[in-house]
C-alpha cells in the first residue's frame, strides 16, 4: 500500500511543471495506460492533486502530451470520484470546446460526455453554459458543424446533449419555441457515420418527449418530429399505394436498399420516444394519423431483439387500443398506485445501469 502511494507521488512529480517536457510527455503516456484498467482508475480517480496535474497538462504546447492527458481524464471521468476535482474545470473545458481553432476539441468533447453522465456534474455544466450567456445554441452549432481535417466532427456532443436534457432546465432551453435548436438536430437521427452521434440525438429527443406540454408543438409542422423518429425504424418493404400515401412524406417510396437502425438500443429509444408522444390525447391522435402503425407493423415482422419487440408491442397496443377513460387521458399525469410506481422505479434503475455500462465501454475503447 505504502509502496503504491510512493509510486503515485513519484508519478505526480513527473507530471508536474517541474519535470522536463520529455519526462512529462512520457509520464502522461504512462498515466493514460494506467487509466485503461479498472485498478488504475480506482487508484487515481480520487486524487485531486493528480487530476489537477492532468488538467494542467492538457494546456501543454506539445499536442501529443496534451492529448494523452485528455484521454487519461476521459477514462478517469468514468469514475464519479473524479468529478469533484474536475467540476471547477468545466467552464475552461467548455471554452476550449467552442473555440473555433482549438485542435483538441474532440477529446474535450468526450471528456464532457463522460462528466455530464453524473447529475451533479451535469448541472454544473449547464450552469457554466448559462454563465457564458448563450445557452445551448453554441453546442448545437458545434454539433451541426461538419468535420474538417483540423477539427473532426464532434460526435460525442450527442451524448453531451442527451445527458444535459435529463435536466428539465436544459429541456426548456432546447425546446424554446422562438428558436430553432431541436429542429436542426432532427436530421441526425439518420446520421450513418456515427452510432454515438445518432444514439445521442435520439436519447436527447426521448428526454425531450417527457415534456408533454411541448408534444403538440413537436408534432406540428413547425418541428415535425415524428417522421425523424419513424424513419430509422422503417425498412425497404413495399407497401400498397393506399398505405404508402398515409405515411409522412419522408417515409414514402423509400429505396430498396433502405436499412433500419442497426443498434437495437437505439431502436428501443426511438420506440420509447414515440410512446411518450402518445401520452396525451392530442399527441396520440397525431401519432395515429401519421400511419405510425404501418411502420411498426413492418418493424414487428422484422425485429428479433426481445427488448425492442416488447417496446414495439407496447406502442402498438396504445395505437390500436381503446382511448383511456375520461380524466386519464394524459398518461404522464395519471396518478400511479404506489406499488406500480416502485416497480417502474426499479425498471428505470435497471435501464440507467445498462446505459452507464454502455458509456463506460465507450471510454475504455478510447484508452486503447
Amino acid at each position, binding site marked *: 500500500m505504502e509502496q503504491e502511494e510512493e509510486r503515485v507521488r513519484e508519478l505526480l512529480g513527473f507530471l508536474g511543471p517541474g519535470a522536463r517536457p520529455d519526462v512529462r510527455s512520457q509520464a502522461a503516456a504512462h498515466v493514460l495506460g494506467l487509466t485503461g484498467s479498472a485498478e488504475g482508475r480506482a487508484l487515481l480517480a480520487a486524487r485531486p492533486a493528480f487530476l489537477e496535474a492532468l488538467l494542467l497538462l492538457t494546456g501543454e504546447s506539445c499536442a501529443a502530451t496534451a492529448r494523452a492527458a485528455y484521454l487519461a481524464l476521459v477514462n478517469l471521468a468514468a469514475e464519479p470520484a473524479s468529478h469533484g476535482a474536475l467540476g471547477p474545470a468545466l467552464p475552461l473545458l467548455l471554452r476550449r470546446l467552442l473555440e473555433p481553432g482549438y485542435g483538441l476539441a474532440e477529446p474535450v468533447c468526450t471528456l464532457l460526455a463522460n462528466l455530464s453522465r453524473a447529475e451533479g456534474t451535469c448541472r454544473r455544466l449547464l450552469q457554466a453554459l448559462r454563465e457564458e450567456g448563450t445557452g445551448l*445554441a453554441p453546442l448545437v*452549432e458545434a454539433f*451541426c458543424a461538419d468535420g474538417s481535417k483540423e477539427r473532426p466532427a464532434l460526435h460525442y456532443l450527442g451524448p453531451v446533449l442527451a445527458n444535459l436534457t435529463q435536466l428539465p432546465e436544459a429541456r426548456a432551453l432546447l425546446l*424554446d419555441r*422562438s*428558436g*430553432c*435548436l431541436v*429542429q*436542426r438536430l432532427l436530421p441526425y437521427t439518420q446520421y450513418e457515420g456515427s452510432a454515438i452521434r445518432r444514439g445521442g440525438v435520439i436519447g436527447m429527443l426521448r428526454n425531450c418527449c417527457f415534456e408533454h406540454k411541448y408534444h403538440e408543438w413537436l408534432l406540428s*409542422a*413547425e418541428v*415535425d418530429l415524428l*417522421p425523424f423518429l419513424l424513419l430509422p425504424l422503417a425498412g425497404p418493404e413495399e407497401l400498397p399505394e393506399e398505405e404508402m400515401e398515409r405515411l409522412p*412524406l*419522408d417515409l*414514402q*417510396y*423509400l*429505396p430498396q436498399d433502405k436499412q433500419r437502425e442497426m443498434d437495437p438500443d437505439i431502436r428501443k429509444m426511438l420506440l420509447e420516444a414515440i410512446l411518450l408522444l402518445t401520452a396525451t390525447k392530442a399527441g396520440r391522435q397525431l401519432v395515429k394519423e401519421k400511419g405510425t402503425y404501418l411502420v411498426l407493423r413492418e418493424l414487428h415482422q422484422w425485429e428479433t431483439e426481445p427488448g425492442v419487440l416488447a417496446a414495439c408491442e407496447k406502442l402498438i397496443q396504445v395505437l390500436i387500443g381503446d382511448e383511456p377513460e375520461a380524466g386519464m387521458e394524459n398518461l404522464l399525469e395519471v396518478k400511479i398506485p404506489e406499488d406500480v410506481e416502485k416497480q417502474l422505479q426499479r425498471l428505470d434503475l435497471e435501464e440507467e445501469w445498462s446505459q452507464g455500462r454502455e458509456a463506460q465501454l465507450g471510454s475504455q475503447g478510447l484508452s486503447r
Partner: protein
Amino acid sequence: MFMKKSPAEIDPEQNPALACLQSIIFDEDRSPEEQANTYKNEGNDYFKETNYKKAIISYTEGLKKKCSDQDLNAVLYTNRAAAQFYLGNYRSALNDVIIARKLKPTHLKAIIRGALCYLELKNFPEAVAWCEEGLRIDSKEKKLVDVRAKADRLKRAEQRDIRKAKLKEKKEQSQKEVLHSAIKERNIKLFLEASEKEDEISDDLAEMSLNGFSSENAMGTKIYLDENGNLNWPVLFLYPEYGQTDFISAFHEDSRFIDHILVMFAELPPWDLESKYHPSNLELYFEDEAREEMYQVNPENTLLQVLQHQRYFVKAGTPSFLVLVKHCPFSKNYFLGKKVHRLK
C-alpha cells in the same frame, strides 16, 4: 403645396427651384460616402412607394460612387436585392445578396433575402443552408426560423417526389424487360426504324424497341403480358378500299383471326356500300415493307402463329393487317406490281 412623390425627372426650365435643390443633394463636391448615402435614402423612398424600378436605379447610382464604407455598400446591395426580389428577379437579387454577404458577413437582412431567393428559385437545400448560416448569427430570428421550416418541408417533399419517380421508372423498366424477354422467347421480330440492315434486327432487339413499347401508340394502348403469361397485342386492321380501319386494343396471342373477324363483321359496316364485306368473303394480308411484298394470312391461324412468320416484323408495337374482299377489282389493282405470297 406639397409634393406627394419625389420627382423623377426635373426640367430646370419649368422648375428651376427644384432643379437647384436636386443639384444641392447630389453635389459632386461631397464625399462619395455622403453621395452614396443620399442615393440610398432616395432608393429607400422609392422602395416605400413600391416603385422598385426607380429604387434599383437609385441604389445602383449609390454603388457607382464606389465609396469606402463597406457596410453602406452592403446595405445598398441588400436593398437593391430586395427591390429586384419584389420585381420577381430572383437571380439578380441573389447575386446582390451574395456580394452583400461578402462585404459584411453578419448582415442578417442579406442572409434572409438570400434564403427567400433560394426558396423562390426552388433550391430548397440552399435555402435551408442560408437560414442555418443566419441562425448562427441570431439563433432566434423569427423570419429565419419560419423560412427554414418552410424550405425544409418543401425539400423533403421534393425528395419524396424524386424517390417516387425513381421507383416508378425502375418498375417500368423491369416490366419492359419482362415483356421484352416474352417477345424474344416467341421469336417475334420487331421492325427497326431507320435501319436498313434487316438481318441484324433480331440481334438488336435488346436496344431497340423497348422504346416502341414504352411510348403508347396513337390509341393509347400498349402490349401487355396477362396473369397467365400470355401476350395481348393492340392490332390494327386496314381496309384500303374504303380508307377505313378497325382497332383491337387487346388481341390475345392465342386467338384466331377468324374469331375476331366473325365478331367485327357480324353486321355489315356502314361504309360497306356494296355489302360485300362478309366474313367468308374476306382475305387477310400483311406487308413485308422492307421487300415490298405481300403475304396472305390464313384466318384460322392465331395471332402468335402469324407474328412468328419469318417475314413478319412488328412495327411501332402494333401489328397491322390488310383486309380485302376476294376477287374484287380493287384488290387486283391494289396488288398490281407487287409480289404476293398467296396461301397454297
